[in-house]
């Protein structure tokens, strides 16, 4: 047991505990806040593991942006502030599935890595990770820009029903055929 181990166990306990509250809380808003705690603890784990850049990005993007977006969603859908009763399905097999997946994965890892002491690697500073990304992973990085752009445009176009709307709203099928004739771009079948 090194200090790193103790730190990881402590942070892990926080992360898992908060994570458990995220999926069981009856308050929508509180779930979001527990998520912040859990993700923050995971950022701490990254630091212990030596991945500094990932840790900071985790804090900035996840805690800073993603969770805020989620909380916006909670607010915009007029979720009640107090506890809600209809957040969960009947428990059914979900607990079994969740526990099975968690324990199964844990057993798998324990089986593969045992209780072996691994040395702490060189810290994943911004410089190292940057070299990695711009040395090896340039292509997905560039594709990611397209992805982000489409996410942006998609989010806008979905949430603003008035974008690109035309004056006429042709619900009437007769109108549609008239319009088609008007435009004179049809060929008979």
């Amino acid at each position, binding site marked *: 047991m090194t200090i*790193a181990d103790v730190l990881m*166990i402590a942070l892990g306990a926080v992360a898992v505990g908060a994570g458990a509250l995220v999926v069981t809380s009856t308050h929508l808003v509180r779930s979001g806040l527990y998520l912040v705690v859990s993700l923050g603890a995971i950022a701490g784990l990254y630091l212990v*593991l030596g991945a500094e850049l990932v840790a900071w990005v985790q804090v900035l993007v996840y805690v800073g942006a993603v969770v805020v977006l*989620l909380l916006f*969603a909670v607010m915009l859908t007029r979720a009640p502030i107090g506890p809600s009763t209809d957040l969960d399905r009947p428990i059914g097999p979900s607990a079994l599935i969740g*526990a099975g997946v968690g324990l199964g994965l844990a057993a798998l890892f*324990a089986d593969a890595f045992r209780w072996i002491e691994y040395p*702490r690697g060189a810290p994943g500073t911004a410089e190292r990770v940057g070299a990695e990304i711009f040395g090896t992973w340039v292509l*997905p990085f560039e594709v990611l820009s397209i992805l982000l752009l489409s996410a942006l445009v998609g989010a806008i176009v979905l949430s603003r029903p008035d974008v690109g709307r035309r004056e006429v709203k042709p619900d009437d099928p007769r109108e549609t055929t008239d319009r088609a004739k008007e435009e004179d771009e049809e060929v008979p079948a």
Partner: protein
Amino acid sequence: MHVTIPYVIAAALFGLGVYGVARRRNAILVLMAVELMLNAVNLILVTADVSLRSALRGVPGEAWATPNSQAGSGGAFALFVIVLAAAEVGVGLAIVLQFYRVRRAVAIDEVPLDEERVSE
């Protein structure tokens, strides 16, 4: 350090995420559970960097062949996952809001999956 610890934490987080996805009915809560799952994945990736790097130096007692090891890419992968998650949440928020606008609800049980209910 013992990498088993973060790996097991990641496993627990993923299990919690799966439980949340299966149990929750509110779309936003499902999204949160998915975030837990993605974070578990990231934790595995970052931890794998540590275990792989030391394996390259042959530190652990067990000699295991990783001829093509790309140790160090895990952190980069994790960054990609974070960005993917952010993009998804962005669009997901818009979709949930649209759904809410149309149906005044965010409970996904009401998403009709059966043909009978649709054709009515």
